[in-house]
């Protein structure tokens, strides 16, 4: 069963379309990256899933059930624009948020206790948020997002504003939550986190979904049949089927070449060809990074 399924979700504002018939499928227990440049419509989609705004058309189901107000307790949401009540004490604030998510006061207190112990922030409970540092406040915010043990966690740009230490802490927590069976959707434009964390991705550009799949599938789809070869001694390729794109000297008197295979065939053929002209030290297929795919797709589209 899918944790989230959106079909034909459309949102129209007076002078522009924020989302145009977007379909996404988020498998259960996955970490799903929602990618796209600024203004693509990611936040609109996330707000629709959180029932903050309504879509004009389309259908969304959560764990097989049509999206309805009872899902508020199932979803945990960390918006891009973080915020807490400045004058309210951390403890009271967390209890309030948990109650709004449908927990009883007693349950909330118990949950908060385990989380503050985990993050070692027990002393903060009596402090007002305005007295906390930014990093501290973000930990509190993260707790408020996951405290009610949501099965679906939606994080909008979760790492923006975190220092590396706290970013790592949050990354670890996200992985732990996944192990425990939660599904995590996050939107970001930081591609390294996508490489590290996501197993599924979707790319939204200009209100349309232009790509979706597992990270492997996507990378396979955007392979350019290019290979990186480290070798001793320069060479030329006289075969029409191959194109030498680049050749640089690297350390230990080795040279690195990028070779593109223009015909479909096995890499073995290329290796055979290469061994005739040079001494091959290493040979690897060049897999595109998410960042490269992102830029190719977004730029390609916007230049149309």
């Amino acid at each position, binding site marked *: 069963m899918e944790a989230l399924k959106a079909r034909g979700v459309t949102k129209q504002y007076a002078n522009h379309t924020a989302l145009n018939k977007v379909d996404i499928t988020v498998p259960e227990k996955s970490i799903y990256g929602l990618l796209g440049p600024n203004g693509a419509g990611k936040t609109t989609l996330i*707000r629709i899933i959180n029932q*903050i705004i309504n879509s004009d058309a389309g259908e969304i189901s959560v764990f097989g059930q049509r999206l309805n107000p009872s899902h*508020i307790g199932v979803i945990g949401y960390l918006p891009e*624009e973080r*915020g*807490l*009540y*400045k004058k309210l004490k951390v403890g009271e604030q967390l209890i309030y948020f948990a109650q709004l998510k449908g927990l009883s006061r007693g349950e909330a207190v118990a949950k908060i206790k385990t989380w503050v112990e985990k993050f070692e922030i027990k002393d903060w409970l009596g402090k007002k948020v305005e007295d906390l540092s930014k990093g501290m406040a973000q930990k509190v915010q993260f707790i*408020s997002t996951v405290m009610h043990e949501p099965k679906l966690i939606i994080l909008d740009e979760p790492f923006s504003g975190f220092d590396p230490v706290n970013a790592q802490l949050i990354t670890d927590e996200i992985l732990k939550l996944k192990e425990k069976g939660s599904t995590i959707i996050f939107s970001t434009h930081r591609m390294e986190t996508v490489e590290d964390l996501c197993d599924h991705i979707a790319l939204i550009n200009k209100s349309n979904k232009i790509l979706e799949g597992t990270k492997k599938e996507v990378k396979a789809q955007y392979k350019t049949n290019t290979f990186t070869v480290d070798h001793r001694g320069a060479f030329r390729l006289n075969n029409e089927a191959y194109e030498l794109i680049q050749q640089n000297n690297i350390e230990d008197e080795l040279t690195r070449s990028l070779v593109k295979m223009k015909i479909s065939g096995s890499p073995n053929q290329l290796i055979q060809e290469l061994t005739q002209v040079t001494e091959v030290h290493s040979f690897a297929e060049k897999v595109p990074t998410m960042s490269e795919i992102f830029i190719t797709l977004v730029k390609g589209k916007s230049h149309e």
Partner: protein
Amino acid sequence: MNKIWLIIQREFLNRVQKKSFLVATILLPLIFPAIMAVLVYVAKEQKKNAEKETVLYIDESGYFLADTAKFKFKPFQGNLEEGKKAFENSKSFGLLYIPKFELANPQGITLYTKINPSPTDVGSIERIFANHIKDLKMQQLNIEQKVLDQIKTEVTINSVKISEGGQEKSSDSKVLFGVGMAGGILMYMFIFIYGAQIMQGIIEEKMSKVVEVIVSSVRPFQLMMGKIIGLASVGLLQFLIWILLIGTLSTVVMGYFGMQSPSQEMMQMNEQYQAAQQASGSMELLKSLSEIHWSYVIFSFLFYFIGGYLLYGALFAAVGSAVDSPAEAQQFMFPITIPMLISYFALFTFILEDPHGTISVWLSIIPFTSPIAMMGRIGFEVPDWQLALSMLCLIGGFVLTTWFAGRIYRVGILMHGTKVNYRVLAKWFMQKG
């Protein structure tokens, strides 16, 4: 529903637990009577100690009649130059120079003073001349003093209201005026103070960005209503504490001065008045106070406070949701304050002067002006149908403004950094979902 309740609780506790709330709630009712008491005391002492100031006068006309009500007039023998010198060396308040003048054209009368005299001082001296000259002129026309005395008549009108049952009730329009004024001003203050607090609270939520977290758990409309109702209950609590404190205090104070509080008075009123028909002035005042239906006035105040507050509170909420900072809110405050100001000024110009006039009646029925206007009229016994119509309109009014505000609020709270004007607001209002 459960979540609205949570928000109401949160808002209520947030405000009530603040020190400023405690201070305002407990100190204000103490401060007001204290200030009044001090002022009354000072004024009394001043009157007791104040000696009448001396005014020297040089009368060349022979028409001046020293009236000693306000000043001690002392004749000065000599010409004006000597008079001025003597005045400079004296402690007198002024020097009044009266040259010879024609009765038909009294000119050249001059008052020399060391400090600028107040208009009342000058006026009182002018009146002495005016009255005396009038008498003299009448004498010239051969009207005898006896006739003059007969012309002067003192009139006092006792106003007695006959209700439908034929019961007679004396009413003092001055007391009703006071009740109306106090009610109207209080209403104006309450709506403004609490309305502004809603707006401020929403701007804070928007600025601290906490609002998106909240609206992922509750509907924006629930959040807005929770806030409005939460603050309304704070306002009501404050009002009730004030009533209680002022009631207790005034009972204590009046007891100290040998008077009785209106509520005690009411119970004993009849027998007391049958026993003592020759009621003194202050007893008359107490009698009129006691004949106002206090429960009726307070009930109406509460109704119009809640209604007016909800009506304006929703508008304040809409403004708060639309802007990014309190400074930006100013531009949208104008249309909200206009009807409030109109009713406030109308309170003094039409409503209290003529509580049953057409303008007064309409202002007390139109929902935007009715909370203040009706408070001005309420003491003067408003016909039931007008009260009912006004209350219905007010309920309809706040349902309308709440609906209107809700549509702006749900879009506004999620918008940051947009330059908002009335066109943008209209667009938000029309926007679906």
